[in-house]
């Protein structure tokens, strides 16, 4: 008997329950009015930053920020970087990027998370190897909580996606919080359509 058969047989011998339906989960909606403010608060609590927009030039701050850096990789049309990704770029080639600029599929107000799918990232390591990330997010794409987030269609269309809630962090030594563990050192969100 294969291990697969062995395990499944053992389990079936252990359980003698009638077929029952899995519990259904409500959406627990509470405050759909202040969803954008809630998102901002939650993101800041997780160590992320909100980029304030300039009415004259909404990308001014982003442009200033990246003007001070050497290697910028942008996968959004609004910003021109100096590192271009192609179909043959290897994941580890992204190791020297200072700023990665990309657009998230959606945001979650409850936790200040943004969802980056493999399509948003182009190459998955773009979410982790750069020192800093700048994320564009359409405020209309912010959902209230994680129940809404996991009801979205993205999950069924991709092989990889991650909810990023601020930059990487660790508190493994004496509980001291450090932003910038293995992944990015900072994460800034620009709310823009």
């Amino acid at each position: 008997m294969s291990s697969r058969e062995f395990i499944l047989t053992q389990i079936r011998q252990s359980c003698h329950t009638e077929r029952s339906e899995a519990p259904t989960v409500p959406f627990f909606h509470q405050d759909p009015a202040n969803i954008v403010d809630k998102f901002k608060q939650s993101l800041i609590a997780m160590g992320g930053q909100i980029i304030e927009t300039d009415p004259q030039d909404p990308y001014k701050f982003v442009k200033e920020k990246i003007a001070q850096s050497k290697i910028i990789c942008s996968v959004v049309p609004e910003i021109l970087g100096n590192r271009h990704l192609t179909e043959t770029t290897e994941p580890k080639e992204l190791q020297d990027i200072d700023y990665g600029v990309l657009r998230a599929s959606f945001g979650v107000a409850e936790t200040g998370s943004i969802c980056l799918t493999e399509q948003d990232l182009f190459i998955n390591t773009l979410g982790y190897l750069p020192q800093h990330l700048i994320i564009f997010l359409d405020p209309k794409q912010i959902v209230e909580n994680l129940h809404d987030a996991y009801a979205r269609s993205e999950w069924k269309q991709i092989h990889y996606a991650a909810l990023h809630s601020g930059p990487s962090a660790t508190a493994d030594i004496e509980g001291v919080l450090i932003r910038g563990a293995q992944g990015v050192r900072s994460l800034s969100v620009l709310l823009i359509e």
Partner: protein
Amino acid sequence: MSDLQQEIQPKGAKIKGNKPVNQLEAANRFIAASAHQQMHDQRLWDLRKKRDAQMHLIPEWEELRDLASDIKSHTLDHLADYLEEFERNAKANGVHVHWAKDAQESNQIIAGILKEHDAKNLVKSKSMLGEECLLRQHLEEEGVTVIETDLGERIQQLDKEDPSHVVVPAVHKSRTDVSKVFVKTLNAEEGNNDVHYLATTQRETTRPYILNADAGMTGANFLVAETGAVVVCTNEGNADLSANTPPLHIVTVGIEKIIPKMEHLAVFIRLLSRSALGSPITQYTSYFSGPRKGGEMHVVLVDNGRSTRLASHKFKAGLKCIRCGACMNTCPVFRRSGGLSYGSVYAGPIGLILSPTYNVHKYRNLPFASTLNGSCTNVCPVKINLHEQIFAWRETLAEEKELSLSKRIIMTSLGKLFAHPKAYRMAVQTGDKLLSYLPHFMVYNQLNTWGRQRDIPTPPKETFHSWYAKNYMKKGKADE
């Protein structure tokens, strides 16, 4: 330098083959290192307080706990069906699915996949199942270099110690302890105890391993049957790096980690990090349902005793555990004795009920490392009846004649005493009187373990029984 920075870190329980682990001996050494003990206690209690603060922000918290518990019960009742559904969907996404009945087979499968790809360098994110299976040791014997990428786990790997906690593996160490390890192993500056410096040292020394790895490995917090996906929660981003940088991603996961649908995932993600660290969510909650572009993905479904535990009416609920560590953070025994004192992969309340299922003789002392105060049960996000199971283990151990000699002697004499009401009442009265009159040194000494680290309460002037007899019963009837 503070006491904590000068004090030497106490080591964990001494493991002697299959002999029962003496948790008490190791706990005493941890308590004796008072600065470490206090730091540990405060750090974990701080996590418990943060968890409470988060809980109060979510009006539906108790409803979520009920849902989580019900989803797990339902899934365990139909485990085989959901595993088959997961396998079907994962395969359709291009994932290779393997089944391992025990630790040995799991290690062989993983070593085999690595060999097939001629992979000699593996970067790994934290996995308690990996610890359970002694995976790293096995792979190193096969000539594979294994690098832990989680900071706490890396500290423990470099110090050749096991993790002392399921979420914060190096929580028992001071910054000086970490610095000493890094000076010895990572060529860090001597005497530089700055936490930022230490974390950066690890980041910079680990990154080259990640970039040059042949394969990456992660555990899994959840499997979603409906989509065939693996969900991993980390704060450092190390799982995403390990999985996305090398061309090969291997996942090792216990069969009980499965949940039916995406809607259920939301419940667990809302509970997990809030219960563990008191943060609303982990920095990264990652979802892998197939190999990345140009990559290959393998999932190893591991049983290792789980299907047997499923058949046990008493101890089945332990399979609901989502490894958040909330029970450890709240447990007075764990906070004071340190995770390494348990000498088992899983420590604290959850360790007390899981460990004896792996080896009842070796871990027979663990179910006694509890005050049965029930705090663990109160904070468990999936509502495992931890303290009831700890008590059930004590009964089972007595039935299976797995009590230590001293416990057997005490139980036998107490059993006789309880069987004779008159003798019992006399003993209680004499004891209470003696406590009131005995000098301090006779109460607080080596023979009275109850007098260590706590004051013995002042005995009442009169027992309930004699008060009841005096007021409500006819004279002379009370002793019958």
